[in-house]
């Protein structure tokens, strides 16, 4: 698990971020056609966060995610084809169509689920980390949560517990400025979410969430410390979402041009491309190839998702219990 960013790893990072972006942009378009049911929260804009963190993770490390979970899933290795089918409610979906966008999970990939409950993942990741510690398997747990969730008791309790039990856990606060319509500058009573780290006896770091390299570096240190038994870290990723809270949101609470400015000036994919091609190690053409491959993958996932069968009546009553 070297975290040196060699060519291969840089290309992988780009592919992951591009896959998330393409996935989300495509869900956005498809949602507008009325074809996708339920509540859908898009991660576009925040790709560097999930990617920069999950690049450090092994398959058997766990992450707990949020209602805005597509990016975390993809970064942790969940199959986008199954995800797309899940979002369409098809039996071929990651969860056989029973979970939907807010509950995509794949425990075989260490992905403990998107979560419809804000803050729900904090305690859970303490649990996977506790198990890791007791099994001494050197795995870690990462809890992604939002600025809104940072005010939820479950997250705060989990941070205390992680330190008290000295768990290999990393808390990644994705501060995208809003919880639904509410500004984090209003709802979070201190200046930075990272300032809460000291209240729970752990290091706190702030990183620019548009900068993959910054996230990657901070996460690398936190993951290393956790693996070595050094306990938890809180990382605040300052970032933004490009779409509404959920699809359908008119976003009148945002400033005019806010998102466009970020897209133009800070976008994580643009920044990444500029930097790696400037370094000369990677060419625009290579990235273009990845773009095309990703596009094909997502196209395919949508075609399949549309064509795949829905679950049948028998599926309604199964999967509640192992035995009953």
């Amino acid at each position, binding site marked *: 698990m070297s975290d040196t960013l060699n060519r291969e790893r840089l290309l992988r990072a780009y592919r992951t971020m591009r896959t998330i972006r393409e996935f989300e942009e495509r869900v956005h378009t498809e949602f507008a056609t009325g074809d996708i049911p339920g509540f859908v929260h898009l991660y576009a804009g925040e790709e560097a966060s999930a990617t920069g963190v999950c690049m450090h993770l092994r398959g058997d490390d766990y992450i707990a995610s949020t209602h805005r979970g597509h990016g975390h899933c993809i970064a942790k290795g969940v199959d986008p084809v199954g995800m797309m089918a899940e979002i369409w409610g098809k039996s071929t979906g990651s969860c056989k169509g029973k979970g*939907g966008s807010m509950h995509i999970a794949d425990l075989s990939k260490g992905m403990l689920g998107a979560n*419809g409950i804000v803050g729900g993942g904090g305690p859970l990741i303490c649990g996977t980390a506790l198990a890791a510690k007791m099994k001494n398997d050197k795995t870690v747990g990462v809890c992604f949560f939002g600025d809104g969730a940072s005010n939820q*008791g479950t997250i705060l309790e989990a941070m205390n517990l992680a330190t008290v039990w000295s768990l290999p856990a990393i808390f990644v606060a994705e501060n995208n400025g809003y919880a639904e319509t509410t500004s984090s*500058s209003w709802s979070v009573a201190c200046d930075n979410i990272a300032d809460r780290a000291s209240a729970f006896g752990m290091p706190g770091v702030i990183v620019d969430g548009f900068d993959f390299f910054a996230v990657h570096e901070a996460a690398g240190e936190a993951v290393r410390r956790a693996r070595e038994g050094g306990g938890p870290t809180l990382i605040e990723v300052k970032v933004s979402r490009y779409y509404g809270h959920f699809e359908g949101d008119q976003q009148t609470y945002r400033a005019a041009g806010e998102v466009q400015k970020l897209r133009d000036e800070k976008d994580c994919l643009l920044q990444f491309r500029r930097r790696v091609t400037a370094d000369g190690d990677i060419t625009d053409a290579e990235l273009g190839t990845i773009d095309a491959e990703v596009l094909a993958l997502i196209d395919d996932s949508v075609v399949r998702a549309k064509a795949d069968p829905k*679950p049948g009546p028998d599926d*309604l009553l199964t999967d509640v219990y192992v035995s009953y």
Partner: protein
Amino acid sequence: MARKITYQQAINEALDQEMARDPSVIVMGEDNAGGEGSPGEMDAWGGVLGVTKGLYHKHPGRVLDTPISESGFIGAAIGAACNGLRPVAELMFVDFMGVCFDQIFNQAAKFKYMFGGKAETPVVIRTMYGAGFRAAAQHSQCLYSLFTHIPGLKVAIPSNPYDAKGLLIQSIRDNDPVIFMEHKVLYTMEGDVPEESYSVPFGEAAVVREGDDVTIVALGRMVSFAQDAAQALQKNGIHCEIIDPRTTSPLDEDTILESVEKTGRLVVVDESNPRCSMASDIAGLVAQKAFGALKAPIEQVTAPHVPPPFSDALEDLYIPNAAKIESAVSKIREYG
């Protein structure tokens, strides 16, 4: 004067009128105005589905956004109720009750009793429930049986715009803690609603349809399904009486029992999961207190004992519907 407005508009109007009438009424919840601290518009949402939209500007300073900390702000609503306000706090989806239930069932519900009668907690907790939005297992539950189980709480479940307005006004004026359940699918339902203020009393069921053959007790969204079923059954000469309890705590036992005394047959329709549900509660009531009149088994039409599924294909099977009600009625109609 009655006009047709939606269930959602009826709720907004009830809040608006009560806020105008009584300065101690305040409204709070996540994004209940929307836009707090943000660079754009205030009252940006009026709640996640716009139910409280407009109140922020009409009642300055009395619609509060909150951080995401349901224990914190629901508990604050309860504390404020002990200190002279009449807060209406929104628990966005009832599915979130698990992060704040203590404040509701151990604090608000028990103050009066634990304190020897010397406390009043006139708080209203508005919350959305029910399936049909493809919102999956954590955003589609009913859960009113959990609140109904708790002594000290009152639980209102309006099934139409008229009751939504009248029950909410009653909830706000009521001096006990009230859980006010709003079915998300009903928000767009239209119905006659008087413009003037009125209240629907608690513990008085509505006899939605009269009939001699079978009693159907239905809750919330299930009332309209029961009406569809009754309509269809009428064609086969089966006359259903439909009772909408409107509040499950207090429950109007008399109206239910009288109806069963007449019909001798009962179907209870409850969108909840079946175990320890309102369906079983009402079945148990009738099996105890109107047994002598019963001519057939009491049927319960509920969701199955599974979490709400996401896929529309499954969710449509999950939710009780008119066809299932019809077949339950037919079954006990033919009994014995």
